[in-house]
């Protein structure tokens, strides 16, 4: 069963491959600092979304809402229908891009939003004052403001944490965090697990592996071989989400 594939298991088997890829000098994807694999954080999360496979069913959105006990209007992973230049259309799911140079981080007046050492942008809802400056700064609309109280949610944790902010707090901002509460326990993100098309891949840039729940491949090869691109890359935000576009699919439609 795909969902039960443990990350530890996955990384254990494929760690060697990652090292090879780094040695082979795949620079664009290699973790920036030399020797980071040994001394730095163990993982740097990335996501690859295969637009050729996405059929726009929004199962990912619903799974996300269920896991985080979110109302329907909260689409932390939102599926956009995009018109391509041939007059057809395709679907584009947008999670948070966990930007390396995240514009939302700098503008927060109280440092309520921060990046953990695995590259995930988190929000401390105990700190957030609800000014929504981060929402203005995010070029991808990935942040959501809790205008009202969230639906009452059973909380498996004693207290909501930035890694698992359930239930959401009224008057504060929330967003996708690649389900770190699950990946930390060797589980895959909820959206990935829910995707019947295996269109979503979660990857680790340090070990250079990626999985969509059924297959496990080298992340750098997945990106390179499929000419994966990042949305609005020219802004310099350094998104950690890659899109594999099919024929006629163009993200800047």
């Amino acid at each position, binding site marked *: 069963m795909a969902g039960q594939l443990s990350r530890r298991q996955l990384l254990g088997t494929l760690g060697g491959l990652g090292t090879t890829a780094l040695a082979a000098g795949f620079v664009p994807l290699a973790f920036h600092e030399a020797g980071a694999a040994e001394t730095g954080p163990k993982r740097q999360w990335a996501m690859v979304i295969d637009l050729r496979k996405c059929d726009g069913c929004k199962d990912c959105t619903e799974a996300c809402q269920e896991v985080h006990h979110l109302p329907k*209007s*909260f689409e932390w992973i*939102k599926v*956009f*229908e*995009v*018109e391509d230049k041939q007059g057809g259309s395709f679907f584009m799911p*947008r999670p948070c891009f966990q930007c390396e140079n995240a*514009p939302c981080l*700098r*503008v*927060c*007046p*109280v*440092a309520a939003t921060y990046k953990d050492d695995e590259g995930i942008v988190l929000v401390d809802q105990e*700190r*957030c*004052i*609800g*000014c*929504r*400056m981060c*929402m*203005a*700064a995010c*070029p*991808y*609309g990935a942040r*959501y*403001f*809790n*205008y*009202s*109280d969230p639906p009452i949610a059973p909380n498996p944790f004693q207290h909501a944490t930035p890694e698992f902010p359930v239930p959401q707090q*009224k*008057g*504060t*901002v929330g967003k996708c965090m690649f389900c770190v509460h699950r990946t930390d326990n060797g589980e895959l993100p909820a959206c990935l697990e829910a995707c019947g098309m295996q269109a979503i891949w979660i990857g680790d840039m340090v070990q250079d592996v990626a999985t969509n729940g059924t297959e496990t491949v080298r992340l750098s090869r997945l990106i390179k071989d499929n000419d994966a691109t990042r949305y609005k890359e020219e*802004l310099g*935000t350094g998104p950690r989400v890659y899109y594999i576009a099919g024929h006629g699919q163009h993200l*800047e*439609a």
Partner: protein
Amino acid sequence: MDRRTLALYRERATWSIGHGDKKFWVSLFVLSSLVAAGVYAYVYQVQRGLWVTGLNQKVSWGFYIINCVFFIGISYGGAMTSAILRLTNAKWRAPLTRIAEATAVAALFVGAVYPIIDLGRPDRIIYLLQFPQVGSPVVWDLVAISTYMVASLVFLYLPLIPDLATTRDSLRPGLLRRIYGMLALGWRGLPSQERALRRGIGIMAVLIIPLAISVHSVLAWLFAVTVRGGWHSTIFAPLFVLAAMLSGVAAVIIVVAVFRKVYGLQQFITTKHFRYLSYLLIALGMGYLYFMVSEYLTEAYVLEESTAPVLEAIFTGSYAPAFWSFTILGLVFPLALAALPGRLTIARACTASALVIAGMWLKRFLIVVPGMAEPIMPWDWGRYAPTWVEITITIGSAAAIPLILIVFFRFFPVMSVHEMEEVEGAVERSGGLAPAYGGGGDD
């Protein structure tokens, strides 16, 4: 000005102190009711949450941010007009400075409340002091606005000191006299005191200008540091500063006209004053038009992917009615009206100013809302329509400005008596120091 006119001036300037006629009480009641309605709407919002507003996931800034920029902008006119007139030693300023400075303070307090109204968690506002992240434009705003607030209070207070002393001396011994006495800081009109005061006012007149510029620059950077089309613009800071001064001078014209009429100051505030203020209005308006053309021309010529939808929406799309109303009725027409040959009447100056003020509010709307609603993910326009909560708070806050002013002038002279005496040479000079406030570099 002869002795008799000066005496009449004193009488008119202090007429409103402690004076409560029917007009005053009716105004007080009406304005307080409007403010109370606004406060009620805010309490309603705090109890329920921001969902009671028209704000949503896409357009998460709306009326509150617009009003913040708008009212702080209004406060500029007062501060800058008064500072510039003092620095250039324009003698005709004397009857105007008090009204201008008081308007500046009133509008500033109203504008500064808006970021708090906009907060999702106002109970955590103290975090801004506990955990400030200096890289955030919100923190820059906090620092700039609070500094400017203190400065504009001092700028209002300093020239008031001699007038406070005069009021103190006219009162019978008692609590009121003691309060005025404390506020007057022992002013007795000694040459050394006159010297210190001139110096203090001179310093404040110089300081208030960069402070005012800094406030509106950081307000502009709130938008300009983002990557949104229509916001990420290098001209935003000077554009905001000019917009603020333009709307501020327009507001001064209207406030002065109203107090002139209601408080019977016609003999001292004349068409000449409105003509001079209109010159300022025209110059600032032309400057603003120039900045605006420069901004839109360069953006529309290149038409980058991120700005194209916003410009299209503003020029020809759903925001076009607002944009063209602003450009024609809120900028070009009022400027022409003020600049037209022939005798400028006060009514004409006021009409032009009212149109400019309405136009500048619309312009802020056209900056904030399309910038928020624009499809940052392609194909995804947002919508925004305010609810009664935002509208009631907006009306209440606008009413708060005249309310603050009429209450203020019930306790303090509406025109500066001391300043007029000084300009008219009625104040004894000590060894030929500076000719007037802020003038001359020798002290």
